[in-house]
């Protein structure tokens, strides 16, 4: 390979691109570039706003900027610290464009054009500086190669707040080079200004940019030694000072709780670097979202062609290849710096790839993220793509410049051809990389909108007027804000900064207590749980209006759907207030399934507003007789649902109490205590709002690197509800459910629970081979056989081969026949665990990658019963008080247990029963109440036992029951009512069996069901108890009656099996029989109106002893699936000793909730009618106003004694309150989320409330302001002094 000759070396000074009009050409270049780069973004989705970074910034920039100087934001959550450093330059630019009259989409395009121009222009001038030549073509190619990349289109412009640093990196390096060469204080100041101009969006890109500049300084001073080290330091130190000073305003924001939440709960390194191989990183890809998507398509469609189009793959690699060629052949001063920068930044962008076995550097990164403060903020390594792309662009640009110089030496005719080829080739590469820009495909159409509909403008206006002292709560919680009319970044509530609102999102916010409470609200209605009492929760939140966003595109937003939101209307204390827009847009697009929910949604107005009856203000006083609740926000919602919070008592989490506070509450004689089965130890996925929590984990258990819970109460184990497996140490698995959503109903414990109806499933959308489930024993056991049952998964793939692995290192391989239980026998061996690993599958007919699993693994002498242990923190703290557990004597005490249900009401529930372990502090009589319903999984026999009693003359069973519907059970075909009937799940092979007292039968009449949704029964085979059979045939499809006459015979059982059905249909509808008539055998009518009888048995036990219970309702209510109040049958309650207890409800009478309560104190009630003797007085009145510093001033009148002042803002240690200058001390956490103070002062007084860290933020703002002032004032001062001297 020959090298580029030396001609260009003899050009030490900047020179132009040849004689004659070069300056003019250069000017023309700038004009053309500016015109093109500013105009080209307008080609993509003209007229559509594309939701760049923050909606409010574009839609209401004045409102957005007006909050720049406030650290605390009351909306759109329950109060949180700001983290946006977008006010400058992005916010300022948006404000300027919008103020000048530009629509939001035009302002966005102008801003994007400016960013492209800044990146391109900066690179051009940087290459000028590096080559000391003012070439044109090479510089333009370098500039465009840097600006027009997949990174720009796929990540940069859609989130341009974090992209400004990218656009200004070339300028920063330019300033660095010039500053090092020329010296003086102006250049370091300019360095700081450039960083200041990068804004504070995100933080990591700025840190990476500054680090790159400092690497350049180190190179120049230490390796290149082109500038004395002293001079380098003379530049670097003041540059750092200016950088920190000027950017103090947003650097401070990096310390806020929002940033730490984002680090804890947003994408983790294993996700960030899942696709960032070196080959993807080096061509500007590797950002994980480029490769990801969901059932609705790719998340970043603009990036897809770079990975799927062979031509673009070749051109994508051509740039780094050309950069290497340039680094090889062209010698210039900083060549090796840019080469090494490109290499280093490629590997940094790759990060911990491959995530399963990272390189030593990847492992170092993981350690650093974990242990070095702030390092986790740099885990989004793709943001160093700026340094990589700039290195490549500079090397390509310099290489092209050298090539053009060489070509210039050739003969004129050859020169023109070569020049055209070189420039043309380079431009083709750049153009290929930039194809979204000139093809108009720069933006994601699915993330855009023409604008917010007028009906929303009217709704927001009305809500703003009504909610000055309250909040408007927006449903549903959003993962992304896609509406039927288009997409926003964050949703309506975010885009209206002046509106006092709550808009739950997927990520925890603030100190996370509020987010946990909002998640509980969201989970409740989405799971179809009745919403009684939810209005009380809204009162705690200071909510006046509840906004149902029925025009949400719930499929794309990954949110609850409007039909589910209608569950909120179930609370009579939420009254309809107004609707906005015309009904209709809630229905999904054409082609989707039009089920009942869809039909309902078609009748809903796009915006529906409910109003809370008697709302409470955000800032208020509450009587000092709290409900002390053991649990979390899910417990508050459950307690409200059960009426335990009626009257609005303050709620205090027991886990926030120390012994002193508890003693104080004992003494206060107004507190009541509620222990719930909430604050479950779960691994969460904060990438979605539903189906985002794992099953309940064992103490200390984790699931990979997923965050455990909301991190409440510092993760104290005693405050958690955990799963225990008596007799077993732990049950673990390599995975469960599928990788897109949590399915706790298919948790590993199901494989060992002795119930073949509950399954461990794994490997959906994946390859299940290699996955395993493991039971670890408390003590080593000797095993010689196990029985394995695989679930009946229909036509889907199933497990065919498994390997049993033991702790002694041995293993046994076994086949698992479809739908059968396999007993695997082997040589006895002693083992600490049994692991069942999937080795091979049997392919199903369905091509889908469905989950496979195990229904049950029976280990002789062992059943892994799952028991949920409720929090123990309250009793632990009570033991530390002077009174000990006796302090609870005479105090209202309640245990509240609810069955865990899944987010999808059509799916299996997480728990099929309630099994709880709890401790009672003092002996007492507890009233048992709650809610039960008929378990859809109950057998026909179990249902008839409940509704007809166990001693009945006829027993009817069937092979299956359609969808588990009780009214479709076998008994419905022998109840004497032709209007009711048995409906199966399948068709041929289904059977119905009737057992009765032995008698002679010589005929039979079967009334089968006909209709569109039934397979007509054509032939049946009837089997008698003596084994004889008869065949019956349907005469005509007009009449479904099958009449059979046969030789009389004695029998006590008739089994009717369907052997043939009418014309085949796909899918085959079920069969049904309305009635069977057996001469001489009386049918068993179901007494619909009869009161349900008591039931005794193993289905409901306390400490292993059966408890007689009943549902308070009729047989008809039960069969209709209604929830019925639970009651005991004997005595007034259950006497519980002061010890540990275990309550189990696992029968066909399925408990949704169980409440054990000592009942109200008998000697007195307080003003709200709640128990409490004598109890503190009612709460005083409060009037309040906001202060300019983001705090509040509250005037309290009529205080008669101790009370809580609740500010309705998320609890944060920084909140401070004072009365007449006297500090009230640190706040306490009340009502599940809010900061509050317990105040004993009487009469009237004024409280000043401020958010403490606001002062530090204000100081940081002042520092930035002073630096800015100094930088601009200093030159003026110098100029003035010089002028005076003259």
């Amino acid at each position, binding site marked *: *390979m020959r*090298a580029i*000759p*030396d001609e*260009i*070396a003899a*050009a*030490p000074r900047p020179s132009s691109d040849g004689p004659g009009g070069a300056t003019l050409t250069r000017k023309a270049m700038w004009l053309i570039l500016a015109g093109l780069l500013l105009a080209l973004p307008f080609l993509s989705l003209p007229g559509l706003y594309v939701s760049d970074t923050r909606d409010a910034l574009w839609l209401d920039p004045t409102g957005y900027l007006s909050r720049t100087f406030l650290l605390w934001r009351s909306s759109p959550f329950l109060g949180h610290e700001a983290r946006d450093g977008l006010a400058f330059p992005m916010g300022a630019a948006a404000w300027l464009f919008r103020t000048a009259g530009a629509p939001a989409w035009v302002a966005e395009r102008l801003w994007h054009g400016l960013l492209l121009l800044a990146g391109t222009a900066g690179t051009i001038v940087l290459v000028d500086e*590096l080559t*000391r030549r003012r070439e044109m073509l090479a510089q333009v190619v370098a500039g465009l190669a840097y600006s027009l990349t997949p990174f720009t289109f796929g990540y940069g412009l859609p989130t341009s707040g974090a992209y400004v640093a990218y656009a200004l990196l070339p300028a920063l390096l330019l300033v660095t080079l010039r500053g090092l060469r020329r010296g003086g204080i102006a250049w370091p100041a300019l360095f700081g200004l450039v960083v200041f101009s990068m804004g504070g969006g995100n933080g990591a890109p700025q840190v990476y940019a500054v680090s790159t500049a400092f690497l350049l300084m180190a190179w120049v001073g230490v*390796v*290149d*030694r*082109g500038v004395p080290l002293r001079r380098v330091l003379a530049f670097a130190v003041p540059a750092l000072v200016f950088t920190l000073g000027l950017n103090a305003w947003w650097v401070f924001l990096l310390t806020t709780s929002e940033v730490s939440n984002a680090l804890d709960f947003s994408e983790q390194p294993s996700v960030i670097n*899942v*696709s960032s*191989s*070196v*080959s*993807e990183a*080096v061509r500007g890809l*590797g950002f994980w979202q480029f*490769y*990801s*998507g969901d059932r609705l*398509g*790719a998340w970043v469609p603009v990036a*897809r062609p770079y*990975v*799927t*189009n*062979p031509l673009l*793959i*070749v051109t*994508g*690699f*051509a740039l780094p*290849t050309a950069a*290497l*060629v340039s*680094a*090889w*052949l*062209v*010698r*210039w*001063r900083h*060549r*090796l710096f840019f080469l*090494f920068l490109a*290499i*280093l930044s490629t590997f940094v962008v790759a990060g911990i*790839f*491959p995530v399963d*076995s990272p*390189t*030593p*550097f990847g492992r170092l990164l993981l350690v650093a993220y974990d242990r070095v403060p702030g390092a986790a903020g740099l885990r989004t390594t793709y943001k160093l793509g700026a340094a990589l792309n700039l290195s490549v662009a500079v090397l390509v640009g*310099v290489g092209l410049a*050298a090539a053009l110089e060489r070509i210039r030496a050739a003969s004129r005719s050859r020169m023109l051809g070569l020049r055209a080829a070189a420039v043309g080739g380079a431009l083709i590469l750049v153009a290929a990389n930039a194809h979204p820009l000139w093809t108009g495909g720069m933006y994601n159409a699915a993330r855009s909108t023409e604008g917010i509909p007028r009906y929303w403008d009217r709704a927001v206006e009305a809500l703003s007027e009504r909610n000055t002292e309250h909040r408007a709560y927006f449903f549903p919680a959003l993962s992304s804000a896609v509406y039927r009319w288009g997409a926003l970044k964050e949703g309506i509530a975010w885009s209206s900064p002046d509106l006092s609102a709550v808009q739950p999102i997927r990520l925890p916010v603030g100190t996370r207590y509020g987010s946990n409470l909002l998640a509980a609200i969201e989970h409740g209605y989405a799971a179809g749980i009745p919403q009684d009492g939810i209005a009380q929760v809204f009162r705690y939140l200071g909510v006046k209006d509840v906004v149902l966003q029925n025009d949400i595109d719930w499929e794309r937003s990954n949110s609850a759907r409007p039909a589910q939101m209608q569950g909120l209307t179930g609370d009579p204390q939420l009254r309809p207030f107004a609707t906005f827009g015309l009904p209709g847009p809630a229905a999904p697009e054409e082609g989707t399934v039009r089920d009942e929910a869809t039909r309902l949604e078609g009748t809903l107005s796009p915006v529906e507003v409910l109003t809370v009856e008697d709302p409470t203000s955000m800032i208020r006083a509450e009587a000092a007789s709290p409900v002390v609740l053991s649990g979390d926000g899910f417990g508050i919602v459950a307690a409200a649902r059960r009426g335990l919070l009626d009257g609005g008592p303050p709620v205090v989490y027991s886990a926030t109490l120390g012994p002193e506070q508890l003693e104080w509450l004992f003494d206060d004689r107004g507190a009541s205590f509620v222990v719930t089965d909430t604050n479950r130890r779960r691994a969460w996925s904060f990438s979605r709002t539903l189906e985002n929590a794992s099953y309940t984990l064992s103490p200390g258990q984790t699931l990979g690197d997923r965050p455990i819970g909301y991190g409440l109460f510092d993760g104290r184990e005693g405050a958690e509800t955990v799963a225990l497996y008596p007799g077993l140490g732990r049950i673990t698995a390599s995975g469960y459910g599928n990788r897109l959503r949590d399915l706790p109903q298919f948790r590993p414990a199901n494989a060992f629970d002795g119930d073949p109806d509950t399954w461990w499933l794994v490997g959906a959308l994946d390859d299940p081979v290699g996955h395993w489930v493991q039971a670890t024993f408390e003590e080593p056991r000797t095993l010689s056989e196990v029985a394995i049952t695989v679930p009946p998964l229909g036509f889907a793939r199933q497990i065919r081969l498994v390997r049993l692995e033991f702790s002694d290192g041995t293993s046994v391989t076994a086949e698992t026949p479809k739908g059968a239980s396999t007993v695997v026998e082997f040589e006895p061996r002693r083992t600490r665990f049994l692991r069942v690993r999937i080795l091979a599958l049997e392919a199903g007919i369905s091509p889908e990658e469905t989950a496979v699993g195990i229904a049950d693994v029976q280990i002789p002498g062992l059943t892994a019963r799952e028991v949920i242990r409720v929090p123990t923190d309250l009793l632990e703290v009570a033991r530390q008080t002077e009174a000990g557990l006796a302090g609870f004597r005479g105090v209202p005490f309640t245990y509240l247990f609810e069955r865990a249900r899944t987010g999808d009401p059509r799916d299996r529930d997480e728990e099929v029963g309630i099994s709880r372990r709890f401790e009672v502090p003092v002996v007492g009589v507890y009233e048992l109440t709650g809610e039960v319903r008929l378990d859809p999984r109950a057998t026909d026999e179990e249902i008839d036992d409940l509704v007809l009693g166990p001693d009945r003359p006829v027993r009817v069973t069937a092979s299956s029951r359609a969808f588990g519907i009780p009214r479709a059970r076998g008994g419905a075909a022998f109840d004497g009512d032709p209007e009711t009937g048995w409906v199966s799940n399948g068709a041929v092979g289904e059977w119905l069996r009737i057992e009765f007292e032995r008698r002679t039968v010589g005929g039979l009449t079967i009334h089968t069901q006909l209709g569109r949704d039934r397979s007509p029964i054509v032939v049946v085979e009837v089997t008698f108890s003596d084994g004889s059979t008869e065949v019956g045939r349907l005469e005509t499809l007009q009449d479904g009656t099958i009449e059979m006459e046969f030789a009389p015979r004695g029998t006590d059982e008739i089994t009717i099996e369907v052997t043939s059905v009418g014309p085949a249909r796909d899918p085959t509808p079920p069969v049904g029989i309305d009635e069977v008539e057996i001469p001489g055998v009386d049918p068993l009518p179901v007494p619909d109106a009869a009161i349900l009888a008591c039931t005794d048995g193993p289905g409901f036990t306390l400490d292993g002893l059966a408890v007689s219970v009943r549902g308070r309702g009729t047989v008809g209510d039960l069969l209709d699936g209604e929830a019925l109040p639970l009651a005991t049958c004997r005595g007034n309650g259950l006497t519980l000793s002061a010890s540990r207890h275990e309550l189990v409800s696992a029968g066909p009478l399925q408990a949704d909730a169980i409440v054990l309560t000592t009942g109200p104190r008998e000697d007195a009630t307080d003003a709200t009618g709640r128990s409490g003797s004598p109890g503190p007085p009612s709460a005083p009145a409060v009037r309040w106003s906001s202060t300019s510093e983001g705090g509040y001033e509250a005037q309290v009148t009529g205080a008669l004694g101790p009370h809580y002042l609740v500010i309705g803002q998320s609890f944060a240690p920084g909140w401070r309150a004072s009365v007449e200058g006297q500090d009230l001390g640190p706040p306490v956490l009340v009502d599940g989320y809010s900061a509050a103070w317990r105040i004993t002062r009487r009469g009237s007084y004024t409280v000043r409330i401020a958010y403490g860290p606001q002062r530090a933020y204000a100081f940081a703002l002042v520092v930035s302001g002073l630096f800015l002032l100094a930088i601009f004032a200093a030159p003026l001062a110098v100029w003035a002094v010089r002028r005076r001297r003259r």
Partner: protein
Amino acid sequence: MIRRVVFVAVHAGSALLLGGLLGLVGSVAATTAWLALGLRASVFWGAAVALMAAAPFATIAQGLPSRPVVGAMFGATHWLAHALATLSLVLAGFAGGMDLMLRAPREEGSDGGLPSVEALPSSGGGSSPPS
């Protein structure tokens, strides 16, 4: 001699750190080739360019997705391109390191100029192995 030892050690360490075992293999191979065969830097430059140029074809050869969603495992499944790009950068680093090691201070031209390879002490940008 010390410079060469330092260079080899630094490169091997960096290659192992950043590129893992593959990086180390590349580094050892390059060092061996340099010391045993006396290859010049230009050979390593050429190899680095060739490997990078081959990476797109390896990507294509290992299959391009046709589904709407590419899939998060794209990087992992296209291991050959990853390996080629890694080796390319390791060799480019080696070649660049040779250039750096053998370069006297400020030999690459005056401040900001664009000197050619002829300005270097050894024509072609390479160097001979220690004899």
